[in-house]
């Protein structure tokens, strides 16, 4: 029953997806957040008629445009990659997964791309008010596109609103609202866009701080810092709030991910949260000696996961070897049940081929039984591969990514509060140390974004769909050489384009807000 697995294809496909997703995510958060900041600035312009606001709006819009283009370029590949490199996945979930992608196109991308053209080129072609409406619609459109793709992602982490159909050998949607309003999707969406707002605010503050340090564009910089600090502070608080919501969801539906995020091997009641820690080697960790060094917050992990200080949080050992007291099955048992579910599917196909209608009907009924769904089909994905270790994600990568993200998240709150304070006091230009710090904080914002994705996506390995479909059963049947070639093709192209983007961005920032008035270039 076990098919031959070409690990090179699986690994290279994963690397390719990781590469393209991480590159895409370098550019998208700025689009998500800066669009609102620009819309707010332009509203001020339309309301007051003050040309200074227009100058401000146009300056940030110029930077927005540079970033937007490369976001689009790195985005298209992601959509089609599901088909090219993960075609087995695409069939298995196409009935659910395709819908949000299509809605994203119809509802969000057209809104974004139609009105972005007016935003860029319409200053002299449409009325002031219509231009403003267009700018707001760009912000709404780009954030709506984030909604739909994150609904799709949320569904992968917690399949809901669907049922497996043995006749088509795929999951089929039975409730659209369950897919759309799945708590994982909702949290993920809010957490992700809030983090995008944080990055955009840090971007605006970083660039403005540079102007202040250079004693240029003072008015533009001061106004921008005030707006960004308020926006950033609100957003960073929202990041914490929604992050907490996400953690609670993960505890419920992806306990293995939570254990990996915390490097927790031995589950316990009243589990401590590792604030700062260095992990031990794998063998030592498995024996309960998790860290070389650690600074812990007592019982906080239990609270983070379940909202109760004494709740039991399962560790990787519990989830791997089972824990009868906590009613946790060992992976080996899940593998057995998963295989049984898969065998039943094979029997179904055989019965169909043999024209044995009685058998076909019997198996169909079995697939509909609640007991079968809850105790066998639920582990369907475990039936694809025998090795227990395969079902444990890379712990150090997940652990460190998570901790970097969280630490930075709290740092950003302090940062925004401080900048808001300086702005209100009117002493910003004199605080040169803090202005310099703003320059160093900007790269950290990007780091927080990427580590956030790594936590979410590495932490859920090996699942493309939690417990139902692992990566080995998701990839296209293709030779590893082809995937390797496209990996390097995209790596080289995206790297060159990213360098170009940074180069253009820096030149545009250096040029400041001066307008054309004459030359074309």
């Amino acid at each position, binding site marked *: 029953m076990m098919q031959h697995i070409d690990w090179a294809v699986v690994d290279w496909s994963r690397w390719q997806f990781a590469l393209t997703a991480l590159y895409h995510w370098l550019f998208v958060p700025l689009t998500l957040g800066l669009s609102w900041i620009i819309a707010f600035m332009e509203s001020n312009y339309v309301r007051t008629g003050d040309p200074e606001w227009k100058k401000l709006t146009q300056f940030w819009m*110029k930077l927005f445009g540079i970033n937007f283009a490369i976001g689009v370029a790195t985005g*298209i590949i992601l959509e089609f990659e599901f088909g090219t490199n993960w075609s087995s996945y695409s069939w298995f979930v196409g009935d659910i997964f395709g819908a949000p992608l*299509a809605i994203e196109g119809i509802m969000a991308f057209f*809104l*974004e791309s139609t009105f972005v053209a007016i935003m860029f080129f319409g200053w002299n072609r*449409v009325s002031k008010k219509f231009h403003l409406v267009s700018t707001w619609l760009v912000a709404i459109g780009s954030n709506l596109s984030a909604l739909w793709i994150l609904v799709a992602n949320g569904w992968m982490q917690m399949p809901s609103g669907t049922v497996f159909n043995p006749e088509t050998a795929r999951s089929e949607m039975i409730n659209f609202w369950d897919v759309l309003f799945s708590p994982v999707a909702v949290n993920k969406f809010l957490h992700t866009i809030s983090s995008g707002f944080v990055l955009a605010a840090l971007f605006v503050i970083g660039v403005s701080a540079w102007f202040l340090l250079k004693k240029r564009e003072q008015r533009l910089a001061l106004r921008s810092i005030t707006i960004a600090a308020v926006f950033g502070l609100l957003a960073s608080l929202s990041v914490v709030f929604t992050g907490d919501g996400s953690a609670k969801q993960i505890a419920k539906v992806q306990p293995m991910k939570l254990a990996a995020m915390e490097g927790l091997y031995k589950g316990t009641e009243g589990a401590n949260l590792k604030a700062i820690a260095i992990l031990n080697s794998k063998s030592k960790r498995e024996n309960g000696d998790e860290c070389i060094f650690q600074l812990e917050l007592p019982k906080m992990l239990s609270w983070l996961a379940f909202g109760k200080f004494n709740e039991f949080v399962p560790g990787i050992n519990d989830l791997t070897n089972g824990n009868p007291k906590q009613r946790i099955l060992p992976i080996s048992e899940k593998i057995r049940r998963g295989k049984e579910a898969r065998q039943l599917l094979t029997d179904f196909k055989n019965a169909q081929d043999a024209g044995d209608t009685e058998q076909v009907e019997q198996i169909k009924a079995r697939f509909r039984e609640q007991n079968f769904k809850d105790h066998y089909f639920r582990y369907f994905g475990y039936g694809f591969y025998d090795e227990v270790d395969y079902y444990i994600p890379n712990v150090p990568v997940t652990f460190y990514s998570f901790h970097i993200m969280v630490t930075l998240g709290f740092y950003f709150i302090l940062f925004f509060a401080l900048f808001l304070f300086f702005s209100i006091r009117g002493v910003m230009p004199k605080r040169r140390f803090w202005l310099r710090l703003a320059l160093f904080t900007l790269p950290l914002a990007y780091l927080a974004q990427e580590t956030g994705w790594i936590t979410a996506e590495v932490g859920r390995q090996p699942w493309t769909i939690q417990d139902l479909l692992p990566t080995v059963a998701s990839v*296209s049947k293709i030779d590893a050489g082809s995937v390797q070639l496209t990996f390097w093709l995209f790596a080289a192209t995206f790297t060159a384009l990213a360098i170009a983007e940074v180069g*253009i961005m820096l*030149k545009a920032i250096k040029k400041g807000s001066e307008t054309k008035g004459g030359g074309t270039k």
Partner: protein
Amino acid sequence: MMFETLSHLALQQYWWIIISLLGSLLIFLMFVQGGQTLFYTLGKNEEERDLLVNSLGRKWEFTFTTLVTFGGAFFASFPLFYATSFGGAYWVWIIILFAFVLQAVSYEFRTKAGNLLGQRVYESFLLLNGVLGTILLGIAVGTFFTGSEFSLTAMNQVEWQGPARGLEAALNVQNLALGISIFFLARLLALLYFINNIDNDQVQNRARRQLIVNAIPFLAFFLFFLIRLLFLKGFDYNRSTGQVTLEAYKYLHNLIQMPVVLILLLIGVLGVLWGLASGIFTKSVKGIWWAGAGTVLTVMALFLTAGFNHTAFYPSTFDLQSSLTIENASSSHFTLTVMSYVSLMVPFVVAYIWYTWRMMNRTKISTEELNNEEHAY
């Protein structure tokens, strides 16, 4: 109308019409790609080329977004096609996508200081997108009629035969003829668009002359494709058993048995010819609308010929029974119903695109405007 009361087949047909519409709009909007191959033919100095680039630079995202939506809608409505074609004909799709990746940055980066690669490289990216995007997409659509070599496992996983992963389709004259037709069609539409949109006499005159130069190969290749199509064996399937068989003159039969489609096709072809003629023989600037509408109708008719009247729209020549039909490749009744409600948004989307397009194109683009424009490419 309530979509949930429709039969599964009716929903499948409805969605095939939407896919056909999106596909045909995409081919029309590929005038952007066609235009990208004409910068140095029509623009004899930097100033003129800037006009051409900026004229398209305000529209390229429509094409791009339509492509993305076309992909998404195909995934949602016929996921087995998505899995089979993209996962199977890997290299054709990857190259097409790669060409679009390069396009997406090229307008914005072309003349910006600090762009690393220089203006000429970004222009060559646009050229590459224009040539590969049109020809390969045409070849890929050609396989809807000529078939590909693949089989599906019991679990509907695609197994592609042959190492070229889809590129082998370029060796088939029928596919190639369609690819080249679309390349020249895109250029013709671009010429008509420039005539409509650019305020520069030199460019206008050159564009009108180029119409003749490009119309000849377009007509030759397209008529070859169309006439040969009528004589091809096609892939018929039996509605009750799902059995796929080869049928002589299948596509001719489809057109005769679906007179509406035949009429669409004829009106479409006439529309394109009328648009071309008005650009070549008169001083009219409205040719783009005739040829554009004609393109949409023609391509729609071709898609409907490929998928309606119990025809397998993504046939396998290696294993006939693995061929994809709108019935065996589609989403479930429930998903198609949900998506049908979503599709009610499409007229609204088309309306605001139309409205904003009219607003932005009220006046032609001119060098004077570009000189004062903050956001120029």
